[in-house]
């Protein structure tokens, strides 16, 4: 630092300390929106119990599906790579249409499908699929987990009725950390 600058930095320090600005937080790290959402998909798989019939064979992997335009890029594959949940290998599959879905445990429904969300959710009825999305009113319309962006953080909104209808058990630990709604409830 130049010789003339030194007194200035002292002035600055004095001001900072005096003004009570010295309130350091942990070093923050930020992530891209869909990187975080991808990580949530991975976590959700750990906090949900599927009925035994969701896994026809002992070696059936746990499938995380993405329906419609994939917003995750490589992030989801990177996170899921080589991971095992409940002693099942995690795999990512991408679907363009509902008809392509054979086995799927966690299904992210992209915003590209928002136009026919109701049909998609209707055809998921009776299947043991944890539906996840970030479209408007996703949870109220019958989806199970909605990502809500609030104050630049991702919140989870869970429709417990839909989860029960799909015969999925969501761990209380996850429910505590999220907002639980029922079908038909409207929210601003």
């Amino acid at each position: 630092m130049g010789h003339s600058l030194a007194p200035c930095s002292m002035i600055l320090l004095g001001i900072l300390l005096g003004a009570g600005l010295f309130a350091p937080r942990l070093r923050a790290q930020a992530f891209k929106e869909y990187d975080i959402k991808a990580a949530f998909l991975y976590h959700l798989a750990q906090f949900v119990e599927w009925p035994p019939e969701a896994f026809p064979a002992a070696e059936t992997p746990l499938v995380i599906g993405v329906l419609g335009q994939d917003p995750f890029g490589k992030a989801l594959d990177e996170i899921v790579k080589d991971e095992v949940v409940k002693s099942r290998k995690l795999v990512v599959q991408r679907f363009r249409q509902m008809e392509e879905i054979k086995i799927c445990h966690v299904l992210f429904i992209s915003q590209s499908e928002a136009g026919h969300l109701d049909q998609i959710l209707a055809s998921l009825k009776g299947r043991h699929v944890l539906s996840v999305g970030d479209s408007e009113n996703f949870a109220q319309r019958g989806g199970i987990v909605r990502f809500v962006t609030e104050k630049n953080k991702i919140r989870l909104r869970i429709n417990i009725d839909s989860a029960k209808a799909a015969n999925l058990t969501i761990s209380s630990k996850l429910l505590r950390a999220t907002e639980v709604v029922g079908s038909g409830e409207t929210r601003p």
Partner: protein
Amino acid sequence: MEALRIPQRHRLTLPVLILIPFVEPYYLEDRSCGVRTSRTGMKLISAVPGVHVCREVMFFSAARLAILIVLACVAGGRAQTNVVIGTPSQLKKLSLDELLNMEVTTVSKRPEKLTEAASAIQVITQEDIRRSGVTSLPEALRLAPNLQVAQVNSHDWAISARGFNNTLANKLLVMIDGRAVYTPLYAGVFWEVQNVLLEDVDRIEVVSGPGGTLWGANAVNGVINIITRSAKDTQGVLVTGGGGSLLQDFGAVRYGGAVGSNLFYRVYGQRFDRNSSILANGNDASDRWEMTQGGFRTDWYPSDANALTFQGDYYAGSEQGAVADTLVNGQNALGRWAHVFSEESELQVQMYFDRTWRSIPNQLAEDLKTYDFDFQHRFAGGERQTIVYGAGYRLMQDRVKNTSLISFLPPNRDLQLFSGFLQDEITLVPERLKFTIGTKLEHNDFSGWEVQPSARLAWIPATNQILWAAISRAVRSPSRIDTDFFLPSPPVPPGVTNFSGSRGFDSENLLAYELGYRIQPFNRLSLSVAPYYNFYEDLRSIDQTSPTSFIFENHFKGEVWGVELSANYRATDWWRLRGGYNYVHKHLWPTTTNALSTVREGNDPQNQFSLQSIMDLPGHLQFDVTARYVDTLPAPNVPSYFTFDVRVAWQFKNLELSIVGQNLLDNHHPEFGPVIGRREIQRSVYGKVSWSF
């Protein structure tokens, strides 16, 4: 040929004289020595009084910095830390609660992936800038492999893309956060007054080539888009400072805070003193300078669908001159509103005001006020089309104070620019083939209506590669130097060599044919190659109208072809390499016999090579090297050079200490300009402390 009868000296001197007024007062002195034997040229030059006046000592204004620091701190609020963008693999190690507390960087828009961009775009990231140890925007632009950057003296730069490089380079569009930094004096950029707090830069996007139809006026050979971080991403206190041999001392303070949960702001102040470059014989070139700058930015996100930005800067500085110091100052304020109607529809409205003032003793003073309004709207037209359209209005009030040496007549002009554009991106085969067609329509006060259409086709054979081709028409619209310029100021005594712009000067036209291919063969490596062929018509020429009179005309044609290569390679988790190679071939020819064939529209190296190595070592150490090779400049001749910068840093938590050596290979080397009086850039070193909390 008529032109060949002009004495050799004239032909060499004239183009240089044109550069004089803006380049640097000292050129005048140096050139006057150089042309002393020239009969007519001598009369002209000796009109400059006081060439040997002593310079004033520059004051380091501690008081000014202190005021800025106080300004930067009084705002108050809660302190936060710098934000670092993490990778997905870091995320999966987090607990659910930690994940719920993660900050998101982009709320709505999914940024276009680099592999999908159908243009010759290169991006310089914050990390690239920090790890290179560069200390100014022009230095940072050296990191773009598709730019030609030459340092002319301590404060002046010549920067261009795809040829035509010059201190008065006039074929680039340069924007800082959407604000065009453009002087209508010569359709270029006064680089030394374009300062930003480098730590706040998010990225610099450099597009070589006309860059499509979306950009504003003057995007002929390229677009430089300097984008600073949202105030949301610059929370907390940052203090940096240091000093060295060329960059004698510098300091900056930034404070970022928040009001409530969705209004963020930052204020900053910075200043620096830079030492003189040197002459070929090692003597001090007496071009020291200093600059003090402060500014703010607020980003307000009242809802998911709205983002409002308001930002501004103030700067003042002085540059050591032959007679007296050149003084500069400027202010700007910009407001922007972005609204998302839906995933498929977005609106952006922006307004700014920019004032620049510059006083070059015994040459000219200019006060320029720019008022600008723009909007653009993007929406989906059915399943397969994305349409973007927009319009803008710009008023430039240019006030020049003339001297007996040079004049812009009339001294005061109010220049209006109306612009509009329309672009349609059509998906021919989903995720595979895209066709983009569009046009710009502009009206300027010099050449009237200008139509600039462009068409590009992008083929994405696989998710890791893209091949694209484009044809565009672009124009470099006239500026005041082309039409209003007089050297010396009238009335000109008979027999004195004189030079002037011409009212009939028209736009320079470009027809650009571009190709590009990008591939990411595997995760750690990305490569791009971009060949091009540019055909120019109505290029600026200097025509002789009488034995002693010369004017600007549009009597040159030219072709430029070349290729740009770049690579980015993450060799290991701790070592990253990025580099590029640039080949430019330029050929210009006159269309009339009056046009002097020696006109120097740019002085371009045929080959250019750059490499940046970024290495994290154990013990919180960083070792970074940036090297560059620039081929010989043909006319006036500047020898080729190779040199490199080295940065060694120790980073521990929020404290970073670094030592940077710049231009280390030689004691000094020239990068631009004629040999007489040419400034050379010397080896230099500085140390820096950076502390954030």
